[in-house]
């Protein structure tokens, strides 16, 4: 077995037992990148040379006892909307094609403090707006299970890189499903934490009240390990919550006896592909067999969550992206005579089609005459969504749903129909509206060999509960052993 096939906790064990060195691990991943990146196109920027040099330095540090952290020397891939000092952060946009952040995001500080090794910056939909990574300005990432298909999005580069073993794990960001949906499409584990659990400082803002950074990993144990590293209050992000840090590896207990699981019927409607529906019902059966109590439930407002999400997300995006003016950083047009020209032409030339569409929609719903009917109304529906979740979580520990209504679709089939692309987020957006944690776990493949993931939604700060439930499922099934990406062309 090659080192790149191992999970991070397996790599940590081997490092601890001195069976392997940090350089062995880094080399294994760099070789794998050299072999697979040409097919998958997951990276915007590679830092493999820097990674190999850093591996030697970290190896010395470990030898000299200067670092005792088990994370030392573990490689990682980073979504390209997380600021990395000295390495480009492009958001897969022409607007930030040459942007080098002057500081590290708080999650990067945490990663660097543990002497972890970054392998590169991963592709995404431009400014995280999309569900297929096709809206990247630079390249289209392919799904390792079938190179004709999308990896999902917006963290498509992160999910594809983990699935193809080019990185052992990665950070993504999730505004309406951007960690969970690509994880589902690529057969890996993706966790979107409770809003406020992880600092957003240095994450390029899309929709500030919805965005969260989270781990994309090969298995649930790694998810808990990476979550442990990135959580914690940060005074630089006023929305990060000052609460006691938990050790999520303690949640990795193989037991769901008595766990109450709700199946909200709105997530199993006509829009859900029958094979996906069957797969999720099989997961529900498995949970029952393992001793959980599974019940049907209902969350009527689900049908309106997607519209609510797009109003709020686009409104916030139109405001957040106002900062891109061609003055302090980012793309500046060559066609200008005055200041106003710089603003307008830099933005019109620097942003891609989908980003402009969302800025337009956001500006519209916030504009005079439409504010009440759209934005204000959506913020009220947001309260209704939260109230309905509260009601459900007074009865259930977790909710079980599909992560996505379909498996990964073919490249080019939805990119010309924005509304159809938005519908890909239907199972994931409510979680962001409610600020709740959600995890996508692979369960099976469909008749075409494409992975299907299920989603577990927990109450605020109950990452431990969803991790326990996910871990128990994983321990009693064999998705990773039985299914591998084929890189089929």
């Amino acid at each position: 077995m090659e080192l790149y096939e191992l999970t991070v906790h397996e790599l940590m064990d081997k490092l601890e037992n001195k069976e392997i060195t940090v350089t062995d691990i880094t080399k294994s991943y760099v070789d794998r990148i050299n072999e697979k990146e040409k097919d998958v196109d997951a990276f915007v920027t590679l830092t493999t040379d820097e990674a190999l040099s850093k591996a030697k330095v970290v190896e010395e540090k470990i030898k000299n006892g200067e670092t005792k952290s088990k994370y030392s020397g573990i490689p990682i891939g980073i979504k390209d909307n997380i600021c990395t000092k000295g390495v480009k952060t492009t958001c897969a946009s022409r607007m930030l094609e040459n942007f080098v952040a002057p500081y590290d995001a708080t999650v990067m500080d945490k990663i660097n403090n543990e002497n972890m090794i970054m392998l590169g910056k991963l592709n995404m939909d431009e400014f995280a707006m999309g569900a297929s990574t096709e809206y990247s300005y630079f390249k289209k990432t392919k799904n390792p299970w079938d190179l004709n298909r999308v990896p999902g999005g917006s963290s498509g580069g992160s999910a594809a890189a983990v699935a193809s073993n080019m990185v052992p794990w990665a950070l993504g960001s999730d505004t309406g499903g951007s960690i969970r949906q690509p994880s589902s499409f690529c057969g890996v584990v993706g966790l979107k934490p409770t809003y406020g659990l992880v600092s957003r400082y240095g994450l390029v803002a899309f929709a500030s009240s919805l965005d969260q950074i989270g781990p994309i990993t090969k298995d649930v144990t790694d998810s808990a390990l990476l979550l442990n590293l990135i959580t914690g209050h940060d005074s630089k992000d006023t929305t990060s919550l000052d609460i006691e840090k938990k050790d999520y590896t303690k949640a990795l207990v193989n037991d769901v006896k008595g766990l109450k699981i709700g199946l909200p019927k709105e997530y199993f409607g006509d829009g859900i592909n029958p094979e996906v529906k069957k797969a999720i019902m099989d997961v529900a059966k498995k949970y029952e067999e393992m001793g959980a109590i599974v019940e049907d439930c209902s969350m009527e407002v689900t049908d309106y969550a997607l519209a609510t999400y797009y109003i709020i997300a686009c409104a916030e995006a139109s405001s957040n992206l106002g900062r891109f003016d061609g003055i302090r950083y980012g793309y500046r047009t060559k066609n200008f005579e005055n200041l106003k020209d710089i603003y307008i032409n830099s933005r019109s030339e620097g942003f891609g089609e989908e980003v402009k569409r969302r800025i337009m929609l956001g500006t519209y719903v916030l504009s005079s005459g439409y504010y009440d009917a759209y934005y204000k109304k959506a913020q009220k529906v947001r309260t209704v969504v939260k109230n309905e979740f509260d009601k459900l979580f007074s009865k259930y520990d977790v909710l079980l749903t599909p992560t996505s209504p379909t498996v990964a679709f073919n490249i080019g089939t939805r990119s010309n129909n924005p509304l159809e692309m938005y519908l890909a987020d239907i199972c994931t957006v409510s979680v962001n509206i409610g600020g709740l944690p959600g995890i996508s776990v692979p369960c099976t493949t469909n008749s075409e060999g494409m992975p299907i993931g299920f989603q577990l939604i927990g109450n605020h700060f109950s990452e431990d509960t969803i991790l326990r439930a996910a871990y128990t499922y994983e321990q009693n099934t064999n998705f990773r052993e039985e299914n591998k990406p084929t890189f089929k062309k």
Partner: protein
Amino acid sequence: MNISREEIIHIAKLANLKLTEEEIEKTLYNMKDILNFANTVNNVNTDGVDESIGATENYNVFRKDEIKEFGDRDILLSNAPEQEDGMFKIPKVI
């Protein structure tokens, strides 16, 4: 939900965007669909419901107004398309 060509141009202006003829046509076509869809939020009964201000109930997080030096002026300016004497450069305004 109908949106006119004039409204598209007006919204673009508010957003500091300039759309080509082709983009205006396309936006007009897509926005109608998207707004019809967005409009479905009005089917939810929200009588007596307050607006959310965010994902959590966190409200007005205060901190002391203290100056913290970033220290490296050059690196902050290094991404500027044009700079002069340690300042961002823009065309003449007045």
